[in-house]
């Protein structure tokens, strides 16, 4: 269960490439039938992704997002948790 105190890092099951302020994520696959999954992260997603360094807590991400985009904590928390839920397959809980 991921909570505000959880510390997350990137799974080695995905390869990333930064393009401008965005990311392309390609999952590693062992079957050609699984080759359709390609993800893009917009600027906000890229900001959250880069902060998932295996040291910062989820709460640290929320605070950083709120500060960077000058939004309230509730909105930032919702955005971060939503992002984590979408990308949880490619995240590791430390």
């Amino acid at each position, binding site marked *: 269960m991921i909570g505000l105190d959880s510390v997350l890092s990137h799974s*080695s099951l995905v*390869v990333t*490439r930064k*393009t*401008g*302020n*965005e*990311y*392309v994520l*390609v*999952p*590693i*696959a*062992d*079957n*050609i*039938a699984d*080759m*359709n999954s*390609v*993800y*893009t*992260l*917009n600027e906000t997603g890229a900001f959250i992704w880069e902060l998932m360094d295996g040291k910062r807590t989820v709460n640290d991400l929320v605070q950083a997002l709120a500060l960077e985009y000058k939004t309230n904590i509730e909105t930032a928390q919702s955005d971060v948790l939503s992002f984590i839920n979408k990308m949880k397959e490619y995240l590791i809980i430390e």
Partner: protein
Amino acid sequence: MRNYNLNIAGYIIRLESSDEAPDLLPAERFQGNICQSEYYDVVIKVHHGYYPLPENSERLFVAPYPADIKDTKITTRDNFWSVYRHQSGMFLTTNFPANQNKTAVLKFSFIIREWDLWIDGTDASTDPLEYPLDGLVLYYLTVISGDIMIHASGVNLDGHGYLFSGTSGKGKSTIASIFGGSGARVIHDDRLIIRNTNGKYYMHNTPVYRDDKPAESIINRIFLIEHGDENKIVPVTGASAVSLIIANCIQHNYNPELIARFLGAVSIMSTVIPVAKLHFKPDKQIIDHILENE
């Protein structure tokens, strides 16, 4: 023949029959690619018989049979072809839809340019690059060279190259035919290899059909196509452009280093060549629409 060279998309592939192997009989679609050359990108030594994979080989990637292969009845759905690794050796095993008694094992490498191919279940002569081996060999040559293999048609109209990419049913053949009917040179209508030569990107055809001849063109624009109710061009850039292109590329994503290299190649290309989504109606007006929006 005991040996011959193929020039496909600028790759020189030399095929040699070993002493015990049957004669090599390239399919008609390869006739336009046979060439003389002292240099080669890869030499494939063809052997006869069954080759057992080394014990404890690790299967890295598997492809089931496609849903539809023209004129072929598929009785089993799984294990069309697979990629294995054993220590530093890479192996590709495959079946052949058009010849279901025939199997093959290709021992290949990302570094060494001498590969071995064992073919089992053949007659006195055999096509060493029967489908799907042709596409698989070409795919790994693109991987080694940092090139891109993509589901796309391509045309050259008055010196300008347009690449139209999309999966099956998106209109690749349709739009190539429209341009071809207006005097454009059609490079291919289904599958292309993109190579960067001296800083410029070129699209090359590969022998798919009986009458295919080697063809290439510079690429000036890349369109990701769909049928639509109106002609419409929507430019895409950055991560969106990269992800849309790679979704149409041939890729075996079992190796992080290969993925990273491939992502890099597509990313750089999409910063050099304008990329756009193209919704089109299947008539000649799409040509004017593209030319008016250069």
